[in-house]
């Protein structure tokens, strides 16, 4: 009964907040109540996540030792987490390079996709002419152009950034187009009746009205970017976590590869977090209660 109540509490935290003391004073009390209370707060849920991850890693460590699994096959958590600490400068350097590549590719993607979406959704001829091309390019696996880009630009972070750009460009474009098209025509009448010029109409009405669509496109774009950047660095870079993992692979340096994996996950987490913060900033109404 206790744990289930605790779970309910997480889901309807705000509403049940006032009943919490009476529950905690109930006869079940003790540890279960303490866990339930922990689940209610953010710090509590973070702590529980940490505990379960630690437990999993501990099990892994124990199994690896118990069955004497060689490090070159599956490294122990202590191996690669130790590596993460001892080689932190190397790993952090590559993580920063990867992050810069993501930012560059993603920023370029948004900066090209949004104006293009506006142009396509405003000019009918452009849509009929360009849309089939865009659909084709969207279907095409983006990493295919890697070798071509390498010939054009040489191996380096630039090529990785361009691949990231291609990967996150399409979701942003498609959603931004949908967003611009979904703007009610009568909103345009209202802006005209206020005497708004073309720029004001765009900046104060059309762009913000399309923003929820653009942001949801950007959310998909970020996921694609953090996913794509590693692959792009596998094939076309001499910097970044993908490159580091590739290099470690050729030396059979399993702990470093796993450390790179953890670092890549941290970078992905960071960018998704930043995107959530951005979303809250752009759409405050979606996050404030009734």
């Amino acid at each position: 009964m206790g744990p289930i109540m605790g779970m309910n509490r997480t889901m309807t935290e705000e509403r049940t907040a006032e009943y919490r003391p009476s529950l905690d004073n109930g006869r079940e009390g003790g540890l279960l109540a303490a866990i339930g209370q922990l689940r209610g707060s953010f710090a509590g849920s973070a702590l529980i996540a940490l505990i379960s991850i630690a437990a999993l890693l501990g099990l892994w460590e124990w199994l690896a030792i118990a069955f004497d699994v060689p490090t070159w096959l599956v490294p122990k958590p202590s191996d690669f987490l130790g590596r993460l600490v001892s080689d932190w400068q190397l790993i952090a350097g590559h993580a920063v390079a990867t992050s810069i590549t993501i930012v560059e590719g993603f920023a370029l993607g948004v900066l090209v996709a949004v104006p293009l979406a506006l142009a396509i959704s405003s000019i009918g001829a452009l849509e009929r002419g360009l849309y089939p091309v865009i659909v084709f390019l969207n279907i095409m696996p983006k990493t295919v152009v890697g070798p071509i880009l390498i010939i054009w630009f040489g191996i380096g972070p630039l090529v990785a950034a361009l691949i990231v750009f291609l990967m996150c460009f399409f979701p942003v474009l498609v959603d931004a187009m949908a967003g611009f098209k979904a703007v009610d025509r009568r909103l345009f009448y209202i802006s005209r009746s206020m005497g708004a010029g073309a720029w004001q109409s765009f900046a104060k009405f059309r762009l913000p009205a399309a923003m929820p669509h653009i942001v949801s496109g950007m959310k998909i774009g970020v996921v694609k970017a953090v996913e794509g950047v590693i692959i792009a660095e596998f094939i076309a870079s001499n910097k970044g976590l993908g490159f580091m993992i590739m290099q470690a692979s050729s030396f059979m340096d399993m702990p470093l590869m796993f450390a790179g994996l953890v670092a890549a996950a941290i970078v992905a987490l960071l960018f998704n977090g930043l995107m959530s913060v951005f979303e809250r900033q752009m759409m405050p109404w979606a996050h404030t209660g009734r």
Partner: protein
Amino acid sequence: MTAVQSETNPSASALASSGGSSKGASIHAKGISKIYGSGENAFRALGPIDLDIKPGEFVSLIGPSGCGKSTTLLLVSGLEPPSEGSVEVDGMPLTRPISEVGIVFQDHLLLDFRTALKNVMLQQEIRGLDKAELRERAANLFDRLGLKGAEDRYPRQLSGGMRQRVSIARALVHDPSMLLMDEPFGALDAITRTQIRHDLEMLWLETRKTVLFITHSIEEAVGLSDRVLVMSTSPGRIVEEIPIDLPRPRPAHLGEYPEFSRYAQQIYEIFSKLGVYRF
């Protein structure tokens, strides 16, 4: 009674005094029509119709859906050019969208990402009007429209009726000379509709803007208007003009007036004759 009320109500007198309160405009339309497409595909959406609306008059346009009521509103505001005919506002021929206007549509069309007050203040931002003065006017309108406390709420956090009230505040905050409303209460429930109708009437009695009110509700048309123009089915033409001679402010339950039933009956009969109703 009206005069007494506007004297005793401080917010009402502030509303009237701030910004010199522009008077209602006259609207004069001659033979306006709207035709979409050309040649064989040409489709006549409206008219030709004539309109003659006096300054400060409250005129309703009632008709079946698709008869061109909304098109009329767009032509009168200059947001769409008429295919034939011409529109004069205060004696000046209309060549581009007039800005001395507030528009309310059936959907609130508020911007999701702005709070209620900021939605209203958009009028000030875009028109470059005096901020302090417009803020005061907005505060008065929020007070008058029962929106106190909703200033910092986002539209999604407001009820349908509240949103539409914010939309009305936005249409009036810059003190326009005319108010164009396209089925503004169409999406509201009956109780909210009755209340908001009364609130609009009280505001109008104080400010005397010229109002062109488009509706398909006989109750709203008779309950609010000085004059009801009845339109035919598409392409809409004005088939009857009914002056409404009822005292103001009009009650929540219009059935109190035997005349109301007479007016309603008259409109029903016109609609039956036009084939809008087939019983």
